[in-house]
């Protein structure tokens, strides 16, 4: 008995010692950074690394000894890591974190004190250089917590060689119905699939179609709107794409991307960032890809929508908040930096940069088409999507409804109403 007690107390001592240690070492780590003063740690994913490195060089010219320590983390791994650190009271967080627009509101609502209020640092003035939808996405209660970076104006990426073979003129595709007709022709003449969709585990085209119609998972009142008229229209079109044999099923992002990059499908309905990905994944297909604007729901209808995009944040756990703010302000509002980002396939949302010749230049990978001009013109028309802090739960229910409609053949209004109900329940039990 006595032994057991001494063992237990030994364990307790160790626990106390270790929890004490871990707190200290974290403080020490950030302390080192603040002593040097000019080394900032950044979390960002692969496509953002080249522009960060260029920006570091340019910024260091006026700021002697300035260095960035870039930790490349894929966007899928970023959120578990960020959430764990925030849950642990901010331990191990860097000075700068890149967060996708879809996720920012979730973090701002669940960790209201975790990010630096940029409006208080005077960013509102700079904020006007960004489209209003980007400002809204990075704000809470009228204050900005993120500096808008790239956007994802949507478009259709297509294989010019397949289209030529099938005799389809992409300019003639103005509506989703035209798109379906073109798909049937292409499949008939070439035997190649027109579009691949992840019908059971993701919903990017549905989201994009909602945004195109000025709607989203949530209405303006922040209440679930999965059964809205716009949502039903989007699902009907997705079902039509499938039923007419234009869209084929694929499961998972990796399989989707490899299908597009290997030329198994003729088109990809995606955001502007797809340009960089295609170029990276299929360098040998240079000259075979082109872009045309998103088809509208009816002739003359809205052809603008956004999918993806991100913003920079500064965690309040950072010891270098002022240096981080200064660097980010330089990064976000300097045309030159945003031009470098564009060349790397990231579409800037800083509106002062669109006058750059880059946006009227032909892109040699994309068959000398002026693809960036298409996206720049589209940006003005994009409406804000209401992601709210519950984006992930809503997406889970939307994907489920989509799967029921496309795979199990469930009635569209019934499936969407059931999904909306489930979402309402989940949100109310969570509160």
């Amino acid at each position: 008995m006595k032994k057991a007690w001494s063992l237990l107390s030994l364990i307790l001592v160790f626990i106390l010692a270790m929890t004490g240690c871990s707190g200290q070492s974290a403080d020490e780590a950030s302390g080192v950074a603040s002593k040097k003063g000019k080394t900032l740690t950044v979390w960002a994913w692969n496509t953002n690394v080249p522009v960060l490195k260029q920006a570091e060089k340019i910024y260091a010219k006026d700021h002697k000894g300035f260095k960035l320590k870039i930790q490349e983390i894929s966007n899928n791994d970023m959120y578990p890591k960020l959430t764990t650190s925030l849950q642990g009271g901010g331990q191990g967080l860097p000075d700068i974190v890149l967060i996708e627009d879809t996720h920012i509101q979730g973090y701002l609502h669940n960790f209201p004190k975790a990010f630096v209020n940029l409006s208080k640092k005077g960013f509102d003035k700079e904020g006007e250089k960004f489209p209003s939808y980007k400002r809204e996405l990075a704000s809470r209660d009228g204050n900005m917590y993120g500096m808008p970076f790239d956007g994802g104006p949507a478009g259709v990426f297509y294989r010019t060689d397949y289209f030529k073979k099938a005799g389809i003129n992409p300019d003639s595709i103005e509506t989703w119905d035209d798109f379906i007709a073109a798909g049937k022709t292409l499949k008939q003449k070439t035997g190649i699939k027109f579009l691949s969709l992840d019908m059971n585990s993701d919903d990017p085209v549905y989201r994009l179609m909602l945004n195109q119609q000025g709607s989203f998972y949530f209405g303006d009142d922040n209440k679930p709107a999965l059964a809205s008229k716009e949502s039903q229209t989007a699902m009907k079109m997705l079902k039509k794409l499938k039923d007419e044999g234009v869209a084929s099923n694929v499961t998972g992002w990796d399989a989707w991307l490899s299908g597009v990059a290997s030329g198994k499908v003729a088109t990809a309905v995606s955001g502007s960032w797809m340009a960089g990905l295609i170029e990276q994944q299929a360098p040998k297909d240079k000259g075979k890809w082109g872009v045309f604007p998103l088809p509208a729901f009816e002739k003359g209808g809205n052809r603008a929508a956004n999918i993806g995009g991100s913003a920079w944040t500064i965690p309040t756990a950072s010891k270098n908040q002022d240096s981080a703010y200064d660097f980010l302000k330089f990064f976000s509002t300097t045309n030159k930096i945003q031009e470098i980002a564009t060349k790397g396939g990231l579409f800037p949302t800083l509106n002062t940069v669109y006058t750059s010749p880059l946006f009227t230049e032909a892109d040699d990978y994309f068959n000398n088409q002026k693809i960036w001009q298409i996206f720049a013109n589209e940006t003005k028309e994009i409406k804000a999507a209401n992601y709210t802090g519950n984006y992930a739960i809503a997406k889970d229910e939307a994907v489920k409804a989509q799967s029921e409609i496309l795979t199990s053949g469930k009635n569209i209004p019934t499936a969407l109403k059931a999904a909306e109900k489930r979402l309402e329940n989940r949100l109310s039990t969570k509160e």
Partner: protein
Amino acid sequence: MKRNVAFPYFFIAPAVLLFAVFTIYPVLSSLLLSFQKSTGGELIFTGLANYQRLFGDDIFIKALKNTFLILIIQVPIMIFLALVLANALNRKLLKLKGFFRTSFFLPAVTSLVAYAVLFSIMMQDDGIFNTAIHMLGLDSIPWLSHPVWAKISMILAMTWRWTGYNMVIFLAALQNLSDDIYEAAALDGAGKWQQFFHITIPQLKPVILFSTILSTIGTLQLFDEPMNLTKGGPADSTMTLGLYIYQNGFEYFDFGYASAIAYVVVILVAVLSFLQFKVTGED
């Protein structure tokens, strides 16, 4: 004399320390978390609210059912296959033993994520699996997009990954069995299958129990396969407790609720292990 008493503790200290920090501390802190809720970034106590929520949560119940369905089908198939393989590879007459043993064990060494991603690519509608099926003149199978097939795919993948691991455990145990018993049985006229069912299996009972408990625990925590193969779809048909815990914690920021589900898994593991001990008559 006194010194001798303290000495062993000194040696086990590093292990105890690591255990305390990386096991006991998280276990206790997640227990605490399971009674809490995050509101506006602050954790507040809500008593048993998280546990009460479980009863009305359709997704949790579905995850529980899916997990048990996979457990009940996959674990017996895998244990039986592992036993048969171990027995075959233990034959004196078998050539290239080392090669076969290594080949069957190899899947257990591969990374969980890498193998799941590979299976997901092979199981696409136009993947290798369906190409092979076409060559046999059959219709393609919706491996990942049909509620039943998605579960079967999961079971196939898990069986590929884990059978070799259990086989090695059985193989080690088989090598401790004396040849005399088999010789005596053969003299009495027992065939190979009779020997397998009446000598090998009873003799290996403690090891089979060990493997079954480990596999049960592993299946209750099933995460990598649904995460990488199907994300729980189509329509939650491959949602497991492990995946639901992850989603609640890391995607919905609902750590209290995630911890409550985790504790349900703990209780299930304890109850199932106890039952397995009782049924097989071990003390």
